[in-house]
């Protein structure tokens, strides 16, 4: 159980797919203009990552090394299509915003990366912990990024047609925040902050042990 929790936590902190490993950035920067969309994008990634990790790990001894990549892709693509169809059927508004980025989860390197680097070599339980940890880590970062971008870029946070937070009306939102350069700037700051926090924690741990 201890190992399970450790694996789960790694995805959130020291091996966070976005701020540390920096994989799967393309879709992240694209959809993080709206908290609501980012929330569901994150959930879709958690689902696909956990399910594909679990399945790949469960059948890892049966999947021949030579054809593992095509098999991974088929498994991942199936889960993505399930998400795609379900979202289309039940959440058309959100699907319209996320659009092409949902099918593109298939080629999101965070998922294939975890299948190849982790699930293929580890037990099912741990692979699920890794999938959940990586997924939740992705989710937290994309929602935080979307929160900053939507708030600064549009001056308010809108979810399910309700304005949650609004900046004073005198604020003129800079369009740059919603464009890709803005995404890179803000993401850069987020990486810097997580690095600084990580270093501080590291120092404290050393101070305690020595």
């Amino acid at each position: 159980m201890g190992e399970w929790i450790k694996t789960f936590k790694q995805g959130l902190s020291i091996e966070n797919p976005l701020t540390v490993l920096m994989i799967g950035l393309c879709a992240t920067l694209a959809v993080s203009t709206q908290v609501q969309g980012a929330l569901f994008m994150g959930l879709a990634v958690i689902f696909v990552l956990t399910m594909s990790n679990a399945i790949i790990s469960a059948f890892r001894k049966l999947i021949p090394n030579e054809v593992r990549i095509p098999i991974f892709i088929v498994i991942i693509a199936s889960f993505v299509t399930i998400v795609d169809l379900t979202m289309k059927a039940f959440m058309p508004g959100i699907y319209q915003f996320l659009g092409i980025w949902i099918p593109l989860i298939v080629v999101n390197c965070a998922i294939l990366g975890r299948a190849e680097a982790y699930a293929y070599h580890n037990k099912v339980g741990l692979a699920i912990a890794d999938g959940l940890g990586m997924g939740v880590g992705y989710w937290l970062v994309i929602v935080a990024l979307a929160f900053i971008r939507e708030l600064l870029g549009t001056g308010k946070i809108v979810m399910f047609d309700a304005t949650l937070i609004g900046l004073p009306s005198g604020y003129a939102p800079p369009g740059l925040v919603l464009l890709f350069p803005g995404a890179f700037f803000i993401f850069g700051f987020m990486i810097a902050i997580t690095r600084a926090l990580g270093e501080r924690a590291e120092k404290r741990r050393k101070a305690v042990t020595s």
Partner: protein
Amino acid sequence: MGKSFRLIIAVVVTCVVAAGGLAVTYLATKDRIAEQVRLAEENSLKTVLPDAVEFVDAGPDILEAAQTAADDVDCSAVYRAVSADGTLIGWGLRVAGRGYGGPIELVLGLDSTGKVTGVTILTMSETPGLGTKVQSEEWFLEQFKELPEGFDSADMKELDTISGSTKSSRGVRNGVEAGGRIYTDVLSDLSGGE
């Protein structure tokens, strides 16, 4: 032989299982998706023809004639827009012009004189942030309302195109232009009055 056979079996089994799972999901969501598509179309029709209370399918004969008039543009539905007292006040058309990334499906509203009452985009697969400007730049779809009655390709040339999205703009324009041809060739005789 034995080795490659094992590889083939592994891939085939994976694909069969995946296809089975997807077939089940597809069957489970098919009706809901069709319903959502229908709702989206109804909302679009209401947006372009706000005065109408009901949209009646014009029938296969008119649709076929409309498709002939639309020429290379795809016309997949023609609706009569009926007002509360049952008179025909216009037409709703679903047309698809070729954009950059595939067909751009439009819902086009025409009043009974053939003037455009509104254009909305139903589906498209244009480049996000570039071709999708045909939807996000509001003036672009609004300008079609300025077209005169019985507009033709000469009138279309007066309209502005979004720079950087030439092909997407042209796709929308071709769709609307086909709507004009459909009106002139087919619907004007059916509109009654004048």
